[in-house]
């Protein structure tokens, strides 16, 4: 057997034992194997060394072809794997891009939601402020109206505002001389007072009887008390709660004019009705029986 064929046989056998070649270039390997078989057979039949050398060349070329085909097929397999990998990377990138886009969109949506909420809040605040302003205006108007009304009513009562409160004075002429009985003129004034007290239930009154300096202390205190009592009795009889009106006789202790003249004495004989401010209690606001 010429060395060329021996070498060629070895080269073929190496390829036959190469799993990659077996798997990826089976046809080319088969052709190489057949070629070496035929070359060996030919050698046994003809013993032609030149032909054997030629056949060995062909066999080796076939093995080379099988190996190159194997290399190409491996490249194809690798390319397929890499293509899958590329798809995975692309998917990864698109997913990441989508995630970024999504989170950016969510951020914008969240901002928009916040803006809308802020706008809505601002609108509600504005509405609220408007309503409050309207209410305040209405309240102010109502207050002004009620104050105006109160003033009118107080004017009706011919009351005076003093530092003690609103004072309604029933003069001496409205009582019988030395008597506590109310004359018709007094009941007219007191009827208006009753209406006023019914309209303003948070107001209480002090009813103070006063006299001039003539007569005994005993007599003056008694008369002034009786006259004050008469007024309170009128109020309670006409539906004013008893605790809202306290009667006190002060006698000559609190003159409003000189007792030297008849006219002064006339003015000192009187019943003063002090209309207390809302919330003030009559029981707490009485003045002492003698000036301090």
């Amino acid at each position, binding site marked *: 057997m010429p060395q060329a064929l021996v070498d060629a046989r070895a080269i073929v056998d190496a390829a036959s034992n190469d799993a990659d070649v077996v798997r990826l270039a089976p046809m080319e390997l088969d052709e190489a194997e057949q070629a070496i078989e035929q070359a060996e057979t030919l050698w046994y039949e003809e013993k032609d060394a030149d032909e054997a050398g030629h056949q060995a060349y062909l066999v080796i*070329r076939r093995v080379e*072809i099988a190996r*190159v085909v194997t290399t*190409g097929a491996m490249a194809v397999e690798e390319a397929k794997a*890499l293509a899958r990998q590329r798809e995975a*990377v692309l998917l*990864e990138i698109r997913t990441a891009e989508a995630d970024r886009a999504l989170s950016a969109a969510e951020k914008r949506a969240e901002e928009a939601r916040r803006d809308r909420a802020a706008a809505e809040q601002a609108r509600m605040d504005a509405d609220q402020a408007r309503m409050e302003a309207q209410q305040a205006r209405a309240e102010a108007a109502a207050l002004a109206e009620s104050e105006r009304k109160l003033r009118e009513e107080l004017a009706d009562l011919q009351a005076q505002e003093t530092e003690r409160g609103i004072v309604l004075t029933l003069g001496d002429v409205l009582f019988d001389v030395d008597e506590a009985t109310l004359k018709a003129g007094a009941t007219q004034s007191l009827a208006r007072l009753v209406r006023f007290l019914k309209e303003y239930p948070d107001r209480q009154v002090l009813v103070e009887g006063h006299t001039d300096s003539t007569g005994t202390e005993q007599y003056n205190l008694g008369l002034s008390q009786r006259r004050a009592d008469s007024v309170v009795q009128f109020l309670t009889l006409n539906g004013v709660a008893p605790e809202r009106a306290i009667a006190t006789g002060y006698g000559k202790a609190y003159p409003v004019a000189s007792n030297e003249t008849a006219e002064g004495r006339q003015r000192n004989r009187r019943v003063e009705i002090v209309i207390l401010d809302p919330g003030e209690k009559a029981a707490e606001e009485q003045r002492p029986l003698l000036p301090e």
Partner: protein
Amino acid sequence: MDCSMTRFVLVLLLAAGLGACASVPPPKLEMGKADLALRKAEQADAAHFAPLEMRTARSKLEAARAALREEDNLEARRLAEQAKLDATLAEATAQAAQRQEARDTIRADIEALRAEAERASNRIPGETQ
């Protein structure tokens, strides 16, 4: 002597010519196969990827044609057979090289994509501002 010598030479030439003609016919089939293999290899751009094998195949086919012209049919057959496998190897080499190039292109694609993805993910803080 002169005549017999001439006869001897004639017989010899005739025998050689007949022998050549009778033992080895012209390798038409092998020549055609080699030519076809070379054309296929050329179409596969083997001149670029396997220039050595292509040169070898071409020169062997030329040599086979020359041998055929000189009626050396045996040499022509061998040269044609070798030229055919040289061309086939050149074609397979070109094909394998192109497949490797295709694979390397995909590999480069992946690298480029990864680099782009890297830049994109690094860009996030900038984008959100």
